[in-house]
């Protein structure tokens, strides 16, 4: 595997869920992880320790030599937010397909019907997309969409504003209108562990302002949303994400995914990608 793929940080466990040592897969290779005296560890198949970071409630590791720290989400540290460990779901699809779906809003009326979208409110207005060279991240801003029930804390339909950020090839952070606190953003993330190039474990995590919902309700809401996506993700052909134009047809609503694919190609991130039209 190339450094362009190995030298990233990947989520491999929810810290609160680590008890006995266990095995998992990362980029098709077996790794072992556990916790001793409160410190999490990860080893490769030969027993060599791998670097670790504990952040956002999850344990992160890398099979290579990451040349920069794991990204941060400074807004998540502000007081009053509730940090939600959503747990993981396994999906038979490319990790890149899972991230791309997370960046997409046009599917809301059909896949998350009456929750994140509903007919006839299907139109996607133009928004801004940029590869921010200085931080090497993809950003989409001024994304707006009408949502019948934008969050567990939303009382009725509202036009929600979104910002999407791709700070690492298999991770995305969504900043979203916060129903109880106009002017603040709720933070919803999708951290994807590539088990193989066509199989992933998805770890959503959230930092929300919500004083009313129980933790179980917030977990349920996000699991419901992601499981609605899962049946889509397992039925896309090919399972890998085509990076070359021609195989799939984007429209203006897909500007974020176009930028994401272009960025993956630029940084040489080809794990889970299909480069030549089959």
């Amino acid at each position: 595997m190339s450094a362009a793929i190995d030298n990233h940080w990947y989520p491999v466990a929810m810290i609160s869920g680590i008890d006995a040592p266990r095995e998992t897969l990362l980029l098709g290779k077996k790794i072992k992880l556990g916790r001793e005296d409160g410190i999490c560890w990860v080893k490769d198949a030969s027993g060599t320790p791998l670097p670790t970071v504990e952040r956002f409630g999850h344990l992160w590791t890398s099979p290579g030599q990451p040349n920069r720290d794991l990204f941060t989400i400074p807004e998540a540290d502000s007081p009053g937010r509730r940090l939600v460990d959503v747990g993981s779901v396994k999906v038979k699809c490319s990790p890149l397909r899972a991230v791309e779906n997370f960046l997409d809003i046009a599917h809301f009326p059909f896949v998350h019907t009456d929750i994140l979208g509903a007919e006839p409110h299907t139109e996607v207005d133009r928004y801004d997309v940029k590869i921010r060279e200085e931080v090497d991240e993809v950003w989409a801003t001024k994304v707006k969409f009408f949502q019948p029930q934008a969050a567990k804390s939303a009382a009725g339909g509202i036009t929600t504003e979104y910002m999407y950020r791709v700070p690492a090839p298999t991770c995305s952070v969504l900043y979203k209108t916060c129903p109880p606190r106009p002017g603040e953003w709720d933070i919803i993330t999708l951290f994807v562990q590539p088990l193989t190039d066509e199989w992933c474990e998805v770890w959503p995590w959230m930092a929300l302002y919500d004083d009313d919902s129980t933790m179980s309700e917030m977990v349920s809401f996000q699991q419901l949303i992601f499981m609605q996506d899962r049946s889509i993700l397992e039925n896309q052909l090919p399972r890998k994400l085509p990076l070359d134009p021609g195989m799939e047809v984007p429209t203006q609503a897909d500007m974020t995914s176009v930028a994401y694919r272009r960025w993956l190609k630029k940084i040489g991130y080809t794990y889970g990608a299909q480069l030549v039209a089959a």
Partner: protein
Amino acid sequence: MNWIAVGLAKDVPPGVVIPSRIEDTEMAIWCTPSGRYHAWSDRCPHRGMRLSHGFVRGETLACIYHGWQYNQTGSCDYIPAHPKLTPPDTICVPTYTCVEEGGVIWVSLNSVDDPLPVLGARVPVRSVPVSLSAKDVAAHFGAAGFTTIAVVSDYDTLLAVQPCTDTMCVLHVLAAPDADRKEVSRWVEDLRTTLEGVPA
């Protein structure tokens, strides 16, 4: 290979879409509300989603992922994210030759003009998946090909065999019009057990 049975008309009533396949060609088979059958590539050109998971609305087939609608020629004529846009002609789904005859939906992947298989007076009973290749099923009956195989039984049965994978095919079973369909259904269950070599 010319005509292959991919389903029974009664299993795909108007307004319904189902997945089907002939070897490596995966298809969405659907019937318009006005009763026309179509066999399309099972892949939305937008993001690769299987169209067989979609829905029939009016005389169009729509993808479940983003609701893109395709008219009967396979061309996209509506994109919900851009309701005012007329989609370019280049957005279209590959289509295959598909006809309904004798209650069976037939597809030809190479658009040949061969006549359809002769069914006689037989009527469709049911479709049954078998965990064997079509070739293995044909070999079992000593048949040269597998498009249709007449099988001696009390019901004048005919099998239209649909090759799917190396380990799966579907038998579309036809029988004499006066045959008891429940008996035929149980007969084919027994036949499958024999073919698969699993002790009953």
